[in-house]
């Protein structure tokens, strides 16, 4: 292989090869993409930087690293089809905090529900981070906006939520009787105590999210 390579290399002059090596090193060591002026400054006078760049780009075209143009600057970058190699997925199993569990349950049962309403049911204020975690987990989404002053965002659960907890539909969430029967409700409950039926997509008091809302990424069905 070195011999054949030699044949190829001999097509260009020694001087050009040396300039190619310089350009290669410059681009490799550069902290940011280089513009033509900088490269011309660093290379020997008279070097045809454009031509050298084209040669270098050709040399690297089918390699694991490509020479790419960014605006009017140039840089090496790993070939885009190999990007996956540079990504390492680290999946951490984490237990949901008590606060997150409660908030999730309240969102599930009371949806569509605003943050203020969640706080009212919990009797404790709800940290924004808790809802973020639930959205990140893919279980909670912003559903819409309540038709009330301030038009607060309403939250609901996702398909992913049903999936994870093995529910076919929201109606499968156990009601008051079942919760009681399972011993999950403690103490004496006031007579008017009730567990709400969650409502799916159509809630008369709810507007759809605006496009702007959707942009913030929380709305994954």
């Amino acid at each position, binding site marked *: 292989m070195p011999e054949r390579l030699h044949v190829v290399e001999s097509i260009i002059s020694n001087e050009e090869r040396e300039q190619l090596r310089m350009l290669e*090193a410059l681009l490799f060591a550069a902290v940011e993409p280089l513009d033509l002026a900088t490269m011309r400054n660093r290379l020997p006078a008279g070097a045809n930087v454009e031509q050298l760049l084209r040669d270098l780009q050709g040399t690297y075209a089918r390699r694991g690293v490509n020479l790419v143009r960014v605006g009017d600057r140039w840089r090496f970058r790993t070939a885009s089809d190999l990007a996956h190699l540079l990504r390492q*997925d680290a999946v951490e199993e984490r237990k*949901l905090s008590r606060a997150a569990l409660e908030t999730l349950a309240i969102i*599930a049962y009371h949806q569509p529900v605003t943050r203020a309403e969640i706080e009212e049911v919990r009797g404790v204020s709800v940290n924004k981070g808790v809802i973020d975690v639930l959205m990140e987990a893919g279980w909670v989404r912003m559903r819409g906006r309540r038709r009330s002053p301030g038009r607060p965002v309403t939250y609901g659960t996702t398909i992913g939520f049903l999936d994870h907890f*093995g529910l076919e539909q929201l109606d499968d969430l156990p009601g008051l009787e079942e919760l009681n029967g399972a011993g999950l409700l403690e*103490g004496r409950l006031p007579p008017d105590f009730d567990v709400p039926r969650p409502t799916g997509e159509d809630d008369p008091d709810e507007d759809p999210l605006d496009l702007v809302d959707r942009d913030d990424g929380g709305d994954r069905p």
Partner: protein
Amino acid sequence: MPPVEGDPWDASPPRDEAEALIVDVDGFEGPLDLLLSLARTQKVDLTRISVLALAEQYIAYVEEARRLRLELAADYLVMAAWLAYLKSKLLLPKQEEEEPSGEEMAAHLAFRLRRLEAMREAAARLVNRDRLGRDVFPRGDPEGMRVERRSRYEASLYDLLSAYGARRSQNAASRVVLHRRRVVGLQEAREILTRLIGDLAVWTPLDVLMAAFPSDDARRSTSLASAFSASLELCREGRLDLRQERPFAPLYLRARDGAGA
């Protein structure tokens, strides 16, 4: 006082040996360094150095420094004493059973000097290699390995439902407590009554005085209870008189003589 080294990052300029030998005792990094510098003035290969001559040079140097009242670290003086001892052993006829011999001591000293010099040369060669970040460069802007940390949360339906059940029942039970009744406290009632004492020149029914108390639905009975208790207190303190014709009859209040003035 051991020789103290300066800032490890502060490369001092190379010493002018001749000058150093005259004045700069502190410039040496210990007696071995001084010895090595003296040895270099012999201008021979260190393997062929005359340790005896070196010892004499060193001792003379130290004596000169003391004559000039230069402060010498103890290390230098110990070395001088040791060299004087070595010198005597080298000069005196060899004693039997003496361990180690003067020649062995001299050889060891020569070895240490050669080793120190060798390490200095090695250091110089190291520094002059193609060094990363000075002569050769790594990729300036490496993409790096991107670790995508995704958290997968674990929770069972049971966890979910029991958290919900517990929170709901807890709040259902505590809601009674949470809606604290607004009460008129004893202190508040006292203050109101005390304010009214001036108007109580004649027997006045408590019911009338109640007009001065908060009287919304929620607080009517607590106002009354506190007003009554406060009036008992003020009575005990001798500021009010109380009168009631019979059980459940209206209660009358009057400022005691002089109390309202």
